[in-house]
């Protein structure tokens, strides 16, 4: 202290120099005042001095209320410089009730809790009357607030949530008091003070009791036993509306359940704004959880109520926090509703997110589906076009096959034509180099053309070198004979040319019998055929002559006559053999013991034997073999038949019919052939069983 003096000396001296003496002098005046009894520190400690001077602490009493045995005033506490509540015994109570009065103060002072009214001071006034002071709540009693609310006032100011907040505070106070073994026993809205800041305080513990400990009461607690205070407590006993049923019976042992019941009543009133005794009609607007809590708290049977105030508190808490209280057996929907209320924002967020997600997924799926459909459509289209392509391909294939087939046919035809040409050429060559009779037997016009060409060729050859080769003259004669130009043949004979003797005879015999067109009539032609076979069995030559005879414009009767002759020659000229032809149906009917319909001969010296059908020149499509001796159906080869009648023939084997590709119908007699034989026919051949005798 002193050491620092020098350093500050100059500053202090400089600044206070002018008044230092004055100040020093003033200190003597102060000393003088002190000696004259003035407060030495006077203005120095105004508060201290004020309190020191206080003689009467409480002043300005203002009546605030009256209870069972006390009246309360609002007074100014000079020491603490504030207003407090001062309680005094009622004037009617004498000295004997002073302890009962002070008992409440002591009981309350035992409880130090934010929601229990605080006792500040206990004392005795100048008149010797006891008093105690408590905190004076600037606010109002819950009773007044409920009154306002029930009249529809201040509902905005005190919503249910706020009111339940107060209730929680009171529950805490009661739970605390119970933990200190103090029962209130007069809990009601009138004894609950609501402060300016929403704090709730439980007041008026005048009826409270201390529940005996398991061991025994302490001395100070003994003083709080209500029984010590005489009949005063009998007179003032709670408020019926908030009293548990069992509490109304006197001499009942006081329990915490009575306070629980009263709390339930207060809760009822806080919720419905009507006393507990009033029936509440419309409970739909009220949270079912709260109703369940009220029911449990105010159960008639004490053991059915909450076990303690804390449990009640916790259930209300759960309600306020949006959970279902333990007492309420809430179903899933209610729990979900409560969950929604608790986590409204989170739920909204999640819901929105889910919705967005769902929409997104739906969109995605839709897109996917669309794509899928498009793809499917494309696929179907592709398949269709594929099918079309296949069809087209098939068509193309068909066309190609057709084309190939056509080509093949063409080639075949061409080949045939080439073969034909080759054969013709061969024939010509053969004719030039060999014997005319060796000319290949070709069917149809080709043969006659070949003969004509050969004759012309011979003419040329002969013209060039007439005497050179005798064979030329013989072949030329032969060709003339075949084409029934007997006049020309005889002309060669007359020129002295050497030919086959028998033919020379026949040429002279028939030269005069030709008609104007240059061929033999059918009858003479048939005679010629017989003459040719009779001597040297010129079968091949007959065949050739018949083929060449096709060139001449004969009637079908004449041709049938010739064929008939030809069949007769080859079947040993047996009597009764006859061939009839029906032009309308192109059908042939054979009569007589005909056994053979073909003739075999060698065409030339090189090739194999050729089998030729006797009926070929008539080109029949139907053939009636009834009553003939034909037993081998292979005789029908070379004919393009569609129908054949084999009734009354010795035929046993139908197999050869398979070779006739054009055949469609076979007529057989009833039971002529076994079924097995009939079944052996191919499916395109129909078997018709008819009685014998019926003709085509």
């Amino acid at each position, binding site marked *: 202290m*002193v050491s620092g003096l020098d350093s500050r000396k100059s500053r202090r*001296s400089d600044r*206070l*120099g002018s008044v230092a003496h004055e100040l020093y002098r003033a*200190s*003597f*005046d102060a000393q003088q005042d002190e000696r004259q009894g003035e407060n030495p520190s006077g203005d120095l400690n105004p508060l*201290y001095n004020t309190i020191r001077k206080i003689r009467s602490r409480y002043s300005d009493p203002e009546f605030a209320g009256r209870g069972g045995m006390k009246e309360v005033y609002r007074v100014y506490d000079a020491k603490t410089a504030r207003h407090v509540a001062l309680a005094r015994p009622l004037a009617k109570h004498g000295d004997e009730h002073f302890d009962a009065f002070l008992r409440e103060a002591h009981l309350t002072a035992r409880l130090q809790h934010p929601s229990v009214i605080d006792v500040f001071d206990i004392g005795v006034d100048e008149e010797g009357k006891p008093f105690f002071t408590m905190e004076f709540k600037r606010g109002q009693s819950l009773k007044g607030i409920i009154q306002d609310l029930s009249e529809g006032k201040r509902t905005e100011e005190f919503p249910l949530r706020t009111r339940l907040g107060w209730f929680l505070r009171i529950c805490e106070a009661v739970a605390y008091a119970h933990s200190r073994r103090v029962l209130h026993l007069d809990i009601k809205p009138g004894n609950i003070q609501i402060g300016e800041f929403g704090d709730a305080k439980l007041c008026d513990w005048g009826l409270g009791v201390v529940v005996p400990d398991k061991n025994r009461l302490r001395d100070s607690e003994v003083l709080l036993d209500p029984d010590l205070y005489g009949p005063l407590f009998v007179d003032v006993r709670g408020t019926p509306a908030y009293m548990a049923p069992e509490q109304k019976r006197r001499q009942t042992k006081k329990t915490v359940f009575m306070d629980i019941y009263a709390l339930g009543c207060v809760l009822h009133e806080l919720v419905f704004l009507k006393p507990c005794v009033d029936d509440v009609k419309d409970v739909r607007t009220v949270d079912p959880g709260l109703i369940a809590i009220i029911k449990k708290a105010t159960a008639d049977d004490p053991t059915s109520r909450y076990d303690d105030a804390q449990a009640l508190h916790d259930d209300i808490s759960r309600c306020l926090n949006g959970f279902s209280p333990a007492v309420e057996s809430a179903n899933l929907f209610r729990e979900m509703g409560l969950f929604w209320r608790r986590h409204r924002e989170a739920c909204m967020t999640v819901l929105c997110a889910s919705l967005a997600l769902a929409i997104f997924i739906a969109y995605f799926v839709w897109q996917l589906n669309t794509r899928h459909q498009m793809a499917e459509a494309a696929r179907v289209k592709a398949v269709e076009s594929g099918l079309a392509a296949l069809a087209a391909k098939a068509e193309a294939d068909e066309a190609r096959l057709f084309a190939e087939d056509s080509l093949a046919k063409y080639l075949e035809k061409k080949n045939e034509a080439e073969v034909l040409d080759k054969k013709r050429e061969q024939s010509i060559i053969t004719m030039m180099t060999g014997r005319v009779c060796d000319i290949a037997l070709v069917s149809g016009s080709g043969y006659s053309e070949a003969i004509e060409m050969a004759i012309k060729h011979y003419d040329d050859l002969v013209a060039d070198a007439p005497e050179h080769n005798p064979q030329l003259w013989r072949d030329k004669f032969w060709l003339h004979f075949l084409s029934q130009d007997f006049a020309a043949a005889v002309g060669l004979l007359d020129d002295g040319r050497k030919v086959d003797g028998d033919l020379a005879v026949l040429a002279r015999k028939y030269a005069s019998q030709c008609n104007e067109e240059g061929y033999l009539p059918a009858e003479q032609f048939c005679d010629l055929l017989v003459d040719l076979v009779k001597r040297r069995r010129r079968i091949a030559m007959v065949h050739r002559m018949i083929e060449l005879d096709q060139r001449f414009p004969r009637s079908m009767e004449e041709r049938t006559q010739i064929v008939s002759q030809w069949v007769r020659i080859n079947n040993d000229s047996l009597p009764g053999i006859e061939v009839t032809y029906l032009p309308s149906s192109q059908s042939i009917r054979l009569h007589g013991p005909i056994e053979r319909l073909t003739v075999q001969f060698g065409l030339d010296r090189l090739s194999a034997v050729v089998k030729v059908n006797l009926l070929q020149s008539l080109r029949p499509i139907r053939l009636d073999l009834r009553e003939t001796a034909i037993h081998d159906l292979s005789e029908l080869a070379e004919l393009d038949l569609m129908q054949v009648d084999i009734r009354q023939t010795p035929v046993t084997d139908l197999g050869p019919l398979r070779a006739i590709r054009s055949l469609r119908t076979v007529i057989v007699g009833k039971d002529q052939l076994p079924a097995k034989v009939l079944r052996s026919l191919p499916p395109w051949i129909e078997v018709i069983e008819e009685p014998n005798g019926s003709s085509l």
Partner: protein
Amino acid sequence: MSTLDSKETGESATRESLLRRAQADAHGSAWEELLQYYEPFVRRTLRAMGVEEGEADDVCQQVLAHLWGRLVDFQPDHERARFRTWLTRIIRNTAVSEYRKRMRRQRVSFAESSILESLAGDSSDIEQRIEDEWQRYLVDLAMERIDEIFSGNAVEVFLRSVEGESAADIGQSLGIHVDSVYVLKNRVRRRLVHEIKVIREMLEFPS
């Protein structure tokens, strides 16, 4: 509050009787405490008389030694300045005799001779100077305590008002209300006067 009160009054009592207690027990703690207050004053006085800084310590020790030796025999009359007159005499005489010793030992500087002249001058004038110095010393001591009692701008407000600054200017420059300026000024002044009184009672014989 009550304990604080008693402590304060006890301390106050001690201070009041400090000079007496030091007189009664020259070897006790009271003398030690008294020295804490008087040493700075003696040194200050010597410096004011013109004693050089380097020599003031020695002279100061001589003065205090004289004081210590003679305090026991001092009998205060009821004249209030009597102790200080006595003290002044001790200071001056000690200083003069000390300088004379030095002059004998060595040559005398111009400055020293001037001090001696002043010391040997009008005694009533010197006495008045020492009295002023004492008063200012007590005010400074009281201010030390004021600094401990008041916080913030209170002391500054008081000092400025003493220096003649108007309340309005003080309020404006320090950012406080004019009414507060008055209250603070008077509060500090009263407390200061009170503290001066307390210190005076401690370090002076009662008048």
